[in-house]
């Protein structure tokens, strides 16, 4: 197991290196001079030259690559052309916010999606199944901003049950300032026992979480359902019936575990995907997350920022996949690494 882990970690490093290379190459292939983005739309030629100098754009490509890799390793992820801050600082600000949102959403998706999938499989072709399938279909295919605006308009604007936007009521910053440890507000509020901020954040989280959770909940429900139906059709279900297990417990106690394999893969995929692809939700709910940062970096061709986001996301993917690969071995003993 340990040897497997070490080998797998080595491979993960290779993957990250691959992504770094690819990113570097693509960034250089993309036309649009980063110096222009940095110096502004009305820059003078001298200003441009200064910017080129500053980013080392006139060095040979391999020197640039070498510098880039060296800087990365030493923790210098470059300076954003747009925010003019070190990319790493920007990411350290934006990532926890996204993590908070996506984490909450995935938690919801797992907690809701799996039981709902079980329900649908249990009453296959009956009404609950029909309901679950239609609902999850809608959840998956509805345009995100549509859902976001609809929820915002109904529950925040019209009914006033939840705040319209924001991460927490920022007046609390003065009444009960939050000590930061992880930069994830919920976590920090929890570990420092800052209840006003905690409750405020949770209230602010509800609507965006629902929106982000829509897609994973739908997919997880459908995946769980399909895999359960498949698994419950296997030969072993007959023995379990003969032993007196009810249909529901056959599904949850025997079929669920093998069915969980693909669900797990999916969770890892959705997790990493949602981290950057939530920019519409983040925009609608004023959530200062990574998605918004990435989107603005892309639309302004902010090369160092794009590269930084790419690298971070690569790390997230690699980590998530690693965890899933390990878990998968635990779930299905037949594919354990030898």
């Amino acid at each position: 197991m340990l040897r497997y882990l070490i080998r797998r970690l080595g491979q993960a490093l290779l993957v990250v290196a691959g992504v770094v290379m690819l990113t570097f190459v693509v960034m250089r292939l993309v036309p649009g001079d980063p110096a222009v983005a940095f110096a502004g739309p009305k820059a003078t030629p001298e200003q441009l030259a200064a910017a080129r100098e500053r980013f080392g754009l006139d060095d040979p490509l391999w020197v640039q690559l070498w510098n880039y890799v060296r800087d990365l390793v030493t923790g210098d992820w470059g300076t954003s052309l747009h925010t003019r801050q070190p990319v790493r600082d920007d990411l350290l600000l934006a990532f926890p916010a996204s993590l908070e949102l996506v984490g909450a959403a995935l938690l919801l998706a797992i907690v809701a999606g799996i039981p709902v999938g079980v329900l649908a499989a249990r009453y296959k072709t009956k009404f609950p199944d029909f309901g679950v399938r239609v609902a999850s279909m809608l959840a998956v295919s509805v345009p995100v901003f549509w859902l976001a605006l609809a929820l915002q308009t109904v529950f925040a604007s019209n009914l006033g049950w939840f705040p319209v936007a924001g991460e927490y009521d920022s007046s609390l910053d003065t009444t009960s300032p939050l000590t930061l440890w992880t930069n994830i507000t919920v976590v920090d509020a929890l570990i420092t026992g800052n209840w006003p901020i905690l409750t405020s954040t949770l209230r602010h989280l509800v609507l965006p979480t629902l929106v982000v959770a829509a897609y994973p909940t739908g997919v997880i429900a459908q995946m769980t359902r399909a895999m359960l139906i498949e698994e419950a059709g296997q030969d072993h279900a007959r023995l379990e019936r003969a032993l007196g297990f009810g249909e529901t417990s056959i599904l949850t106690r025997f079929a669920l575990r093998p069915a969980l394999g693909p669900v797990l893969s999916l969770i890892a995929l959705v997790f990493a995907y949602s981290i950057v692809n939530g920019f519409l939700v983040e925009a609608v709910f004023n959530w200062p997350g990574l998605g918004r940062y990435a989107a603005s970096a892309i639309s302004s061709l902010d090369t160092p920022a794009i590269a930084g986001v790419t690298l971070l996301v690569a790390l997230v993917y690699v980590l998530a996949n690693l965890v899933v690969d390990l878990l998968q071995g635990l779930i299905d003993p037949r594919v354990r690494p030898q």
Partner: protein
Amino acid sequence: MIEVRDLQVRYGTRVVARVPELDVGAGECVAIVGESGSGKSTTLLSLLGLTEGADVSGHVSVCGVEVLQASPQQLRRIRGARVALVLQSPQAALSPTTRLGTLMRRALELHGITGPRGGGPETGGPETGGSAGSRKERSWKGRASKGGLERVMVEAVEAVMLDPEILRRYPHEISGGQAQRFAIALAIALGAEVILADEPTSALDVTVQAEVVGVLHGLREERGLALLIVSHDLALVSTIADRVLVMKDGEVVESGPAADVLTRPSHPYTRELLEALP
């Protein structure tokens, strides 16, 4: 314990098994022998309402439950707890991601069994064979001292000559014969009143088979266990069965006391069977 009248099982329009009469009382052992594909397994499965996709008609009463009319809840109450079934291909019948021990524990817990009951199987007496125990084995036994449940489990697997270590394994990590023995152990552990066994010893060598059959036979005498067994081994059948049903092409062609049927066969097929004995 089992009372069957005019049982008929159809897949589509094809009748695959028809049993006009079949009774097994407490402490009795009835065997079904017959041609491969003649509906033996189907008959057994239909006694617990497990023939999926089949049309079953007739009258089947098991442990006082009218199987064909029973609600799923009623059926679940007799399945496992009072009537245990040993399936024909045991390895495929085990959930691949569940350790054998987990499966057994869940089944026992499901039926509220938490420890050895009075008059339980005496066989494989407790903790007699620690000498050859591996480390893993001891850990199972170690837990046995804590929970009565573990003791039931260990006793059951030991009764069929399995190392309790097997409880920690997954189905794909055991041999065919081990799977078969585990299935029997499951039935024993559940302390069922009726055991329906579909070729329970076909993958066992004769020394082990003798032991396992001996245990089942012992249970008949001690607890009044009713045994309905499907087997191809006529010699084995002759040693334990009180009565025998011979099936061919979905029909019962001959039935009666074992001694009669196997020594003075009246139907040509039975005769053919006996002649084919190697």
